[in-house]
């Protein structure tokens, strides 16, 4: 077991453990905060895998933006701050069985398929911002631009959905989208 494997195993244990807490805790705000821990540990895992730029984007977008959005949602829906027993639906044992079956199948297949493969992590700079930037703007320009349009469309859609005066302006019910 090399040092990289030990580091990744620790980070992966933190990520999986805090993800378990996200789906089992009884406090909504704590779930969002454990999500921060899980995503941070995953960013550390990306660093071990030499994907530096992806790691920093993960920290910026996920930890910085998405979790803040989720916390906004929790506050705006007036969720209970304390522990509430009604966060889980009654069929959670079936859900747990499905999840354990999924994990068993995936882990078995992956270990049987790739268990003895090794990947070289020696050379640095394979996932740096320079490499990824040239890859994006040399090879992946068209998907990048399409993605910009998608992001713009989704932002406009979110604004239209969440502003109450957009629908109040036109009276008829059919044309309010």
């Amino acid at each position, binding site marked *: 077991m090399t040092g990289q494997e030990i580091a990744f195993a620790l980070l992966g244990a933190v990520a999986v453990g805090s993800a378990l807490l996200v789906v089992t805790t009884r406090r*909504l705000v704590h779930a969002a905060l454990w999500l921060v821990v899980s995503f941070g540990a995953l960013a550390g895992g990306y660093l071990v895998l030499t994907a530096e730029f992806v790691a920093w984007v993960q920290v910026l977008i996920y930890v910085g933006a998405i979790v803040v959005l989720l916390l906004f949602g929790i506050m705006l829906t007036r969720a209970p701050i304390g522990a509430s027993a009604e966060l889980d639906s009654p069929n959670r044992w079936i859900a747990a069985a499905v999840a354990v079956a999924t994990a068993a199948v995936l882990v078995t297949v992956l270990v049987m398929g790739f268990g003895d493969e090794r*990947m070289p992590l020696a050379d640095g700079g394979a996932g740096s911002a320079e490499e990824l930037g040239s890859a994006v703007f040399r090879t992946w320009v068209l998907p990048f631009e399409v993605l910009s349009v998608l992001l713009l469309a989704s932002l406009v859609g979110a604004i239209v959905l969440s502003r109450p005066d957009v629908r109040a302006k036109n009276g008829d019910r059919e044309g309010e989208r």
Partner: protein
Amino acid sequence: MHLAYPTVVAALLFSIGVYGVLARRNAILVLMSVELMLNAVNLNLVTFDVWLRDRLHGGQVLTLFTIVIAAAEIGIGLAIVLLVYRNRRMIDVDRLRDLAEDRTDERPVRPARPDAEDGAVRDEEAAR
């Protein structure tokens, strides 16, 4: 590094996300579980990009694209959740049954506000 480490972590994260989507009742917690599943996919993409030594960096670029799509999804999802909350005063996904099949033992929950626009609410649930 053995390829088994990141792939097993990704598989465990994905199944935790599956459990969260199936078992949680609050819509925002369901969105969080979807984020967990997307992160598992991202970890796999980065892992196989590094393993295959992809010269075009397809895996890592796709990871960036997935992160952007996750941001768009969370924006739209939260807008829909807030709209449902505004109409119903609750966001429990197993009590939003307007689109369910007609069954005799379960009556669909009516809107909490009597003047809530029924068609708009249905459209929102269809979009979920």
